[in-house]
């Protein structure tokens, strides 16, 4: 069985909270704990005149990449519902190629 990782192309993440809520529902996580949490950079006007406003979802140790769903052939619940469709479950060995494909502002998490 291939080992999986979670890729997030966060240049498209709009901070919609869908991953957080999807994860709570899937894993029955209480409101003051997190399976995945959105972190925010900005909104801030940089000294070069450009704006930075990025959201970066970060999974916690409560995230198991929805092993049960994946075993059934489904996507993790956050990936399934992500409004910006900027999350993807990938085989670990493809991480390098996928990062190159998605380009800047992409992260891959191992769980």
């Amino acid at each position, binding site marked *: 069985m291939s080992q999986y990782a979670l890729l997030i192309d966060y240049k498209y993440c709009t901070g919609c909270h869908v991953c957080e809520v999807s994860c709570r529902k899937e894993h029955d996580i209480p*409101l003051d704990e997190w399976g995945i949490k959105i972190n925010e950079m900005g909104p*801030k*006007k940089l000294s070069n005149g450009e704006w930075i406003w990025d959201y970066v979802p970060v999974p916690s140790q409560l995230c198991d990449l929805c092993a049960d769903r994946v075993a059934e052939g489904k996507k993790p619940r956050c990936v*399934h519902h992500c409004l910006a469709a900027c999350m993807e479950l990938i085989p670990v060995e493809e991480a390098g190629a996928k990062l190159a494909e998605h380009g800047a502002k992409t992260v891959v998490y191992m769980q």
Partner: protein
Amino acid sequence: MSERIIDCGDGTFKMRTCVWSPPGDHPVGCGMYLTVKDGKVVDVEGDPEHPITNGRLCVRCLTLPEYIYNDRRVIYPLKRDPKDRGKDKWERITWDEALDIIEERVNYIKENYGAEAIVAFQGTGREATLYKTPLAYAALGTPNSCFPMSGDSCYGPRCSVADFILGAGYPELDYAAYFPDRFDNPEWELPKYIVLWGKDPLFSNPDGFFGHAIIDLYKLGSKFIVIDPRVTWCAAHAEIHLQLRPGTDAALGLGLINVIINEDLYDHDFVENWCYGLEELKERADQYPLDKVEEITWVPAELIQKAARTLAANHPSSFMWGLAIDTNANGTQAGHCFLNIAALLGDLDVPGGVTLAVPASFMGKWRYECSKELPEGMLDKQITDNEQYKGFKAAHLIAHPDCILDTLETGEPYPLKMAWFYATNGIANTTNAQPKRWYNALMKMEFNVCQDTFMTPTAMGMCDLFLPVASAAEHDGMVLPHFGRNTHMVMAMNKCVEVGETKSDLEIDFLVGKRLNPKAWPWDNVSDFFTEQLHNGGVEKTFEDLREEGWFHMPFQYRKYEKGLLRPDGDVGFNTPTGLVELCSSLYEDWGEDPLPYYEENKLTPYARPDLMENYPLIMTTGGRETTSFHSEHRQIPSLRAIMPWPLVQINPETAKKYGIEDGDWVCIENPLSKAIEKAQVTEIVPPQVIHCQHGWWFPEQDGEAPNLYGVWKSNINSLIPHRAIGRIGFGAPFKNVACRIFKVDGLNALGTLSPDTEEGAIGTDPASFVSTPEQARAALYPNEKKQESVVVGGVECFPGLAEAPYELPGLVQWDAEKGAGFVNGHIYDPNTQWALDPETGTYFDAYTGYAYDAEASNLVDLETGKRYDLATREEIA
């Protein structure tokens, strides 16, 4: 295509549905499966086969079970004695009893006052948009169907302007929504640029548009040009951001038009063949040189020029216009500019441009025929200022909201006696522009009905009968994006479960209609009704077919104006009087409106009113949306409230520092009309002079009984919006541009929680009662009107003939209506100094005791007895 029902064993099944409402949303029809176990919805999962949403769902649908099974939900009909309004003295009744009460009350009103004494209100977005007016016309028999937002400031103005200028339904971004193969369709092209004008679609999903389709296009390479006072997420990721001063959209539009025409950037072929009034428009735009536009709008001239040139060089580009066009008394003109720009650049109804449509006859025919159920002459009694608001009247078959409030307050031209709140928590949201005036006026009604899902401040405060409405999971429905005005797909909303005794809005229409006017309501069930509507729309399918298939696409062709597909007579061109896009309107002059766009300042900005600039230097804008709520809904959903626990006011760091406010502080927002309290979010996304305030807040966890009413008056930002400060032909109120000031307070309760009728609810202590009377509101809005009527006597401004003092009278001061001033022992009272004055001798008299002021001795003296009194304590000096 996906399956309608998936059997999971154990009696558990998954049912496919495309959801509209409730809870509130626009008719997007997001596709999903609801898992039902033991008769309850236990899970929600997006349907990957849905052509638009592809399995994606926002947090409001993901938490649908928290809404359906919320312990604050009302799931049985309730009644309450009108004497107990504001008290939690509801009593559960049956539907039969509820219908008996309605029948008896409606007949009583009809016999004693006429059916026109009934007014039916609706909120925004929900299915009520389709089903409320038929209830009013074909069941209750009243012509007074009303969307109560001042100036009709939501969607209606844009649809009306599109109708006037293009003769078409709602112009929408071309996101390949009509094509089952979407972006792979060979006819479709990617918009090179997307203009987001006063719109943040990611979280508003406006009127049937799936907001994150914007991100789909962004990934494919579309770029953004954003016109918005705030740096929205899209603005932060835009090529060009025109960060204009709120409410100056028409000036900016004229600046863009000026560049497009004078630099010869327009599409000559399209303009010569399909547009009317280029010369007139050029003449008008010449009056808006870019230096003048920069001064009005704060947008640098070179950036306006760059935006116009970029759009002209990148065809096709697309345009989205948002609520900011509607919530602006100058919005009719801003909307005209927006359409003119899309037309000048040749981006109308071309691949990758702006899609046009003829409003579909799904529901439309039926809704129109419902108005024929009104008795002869009844429609003439509809409350709208027909002389002043001819444009509104030309576009709408409903009563005018601002005129309805005037009628509620004055009883003219006839008294209203009964109100029906159809999917609206009015005082928290839609009966807005000074909602406490609406509240006071509506408390005078003899009978009020509410149909909704939760006990709201509106229901608790004012209603006598509560009809429980079924959620999206509890009823069958048909989803029509853009309410039929540009409908790419028709979708089925499927009933999955039953909860209590709830019924859908349409089922309630049927029940009430069959009691009051059965001939207009012949259908045995909603399925038969929907099948008939499909047939009316030219679709030979049954509702059962639609349920089975889930959805179907509507046919679509580009460049309909070349093919005779926009006009009912089949001629080529646009369905306007000239048959062309009316860059210069051929209709407006007849309605007392300038045929060309112009810029005019809204009434209560610091720029329209320099006298306010010193005390109210900031501009308040409101109405921006959050993903966690639909206007006033969802405040009781735990997962959503955890994300957005309190109402936020966005303040620039520079401004926050100036007023000693830190992120997370509670802040009072005040203007000449009222006050509201919200929590500071210090952020650079608003310019220093602008603040943005969230709307629609109430606190379901708080005391629901009056006067608190779930805290509905505490953060009631609509209280700061003036009533009837709208555009000339009846559209657009200044929800996004009124003067205000801010200051730090101790907490949400800092100003009290109070009813307008209590002593504590007086000026300064109650957030919403600063202006509680129509007269005071008018005086605040039109200061010159007051000044013209006044005369100055002895240095004091007097208002001869005014029945009541326009200011507070302290102590012994008595108002003399004839002289128009207050007097103490015959001495005139000066509200500026708060002393009474003898103009002849120049002596001042204390307003509380009538004693004279002795400047030399610095105390008070009773001229009759000669006794002296302390200036501060007013106690006798021994």
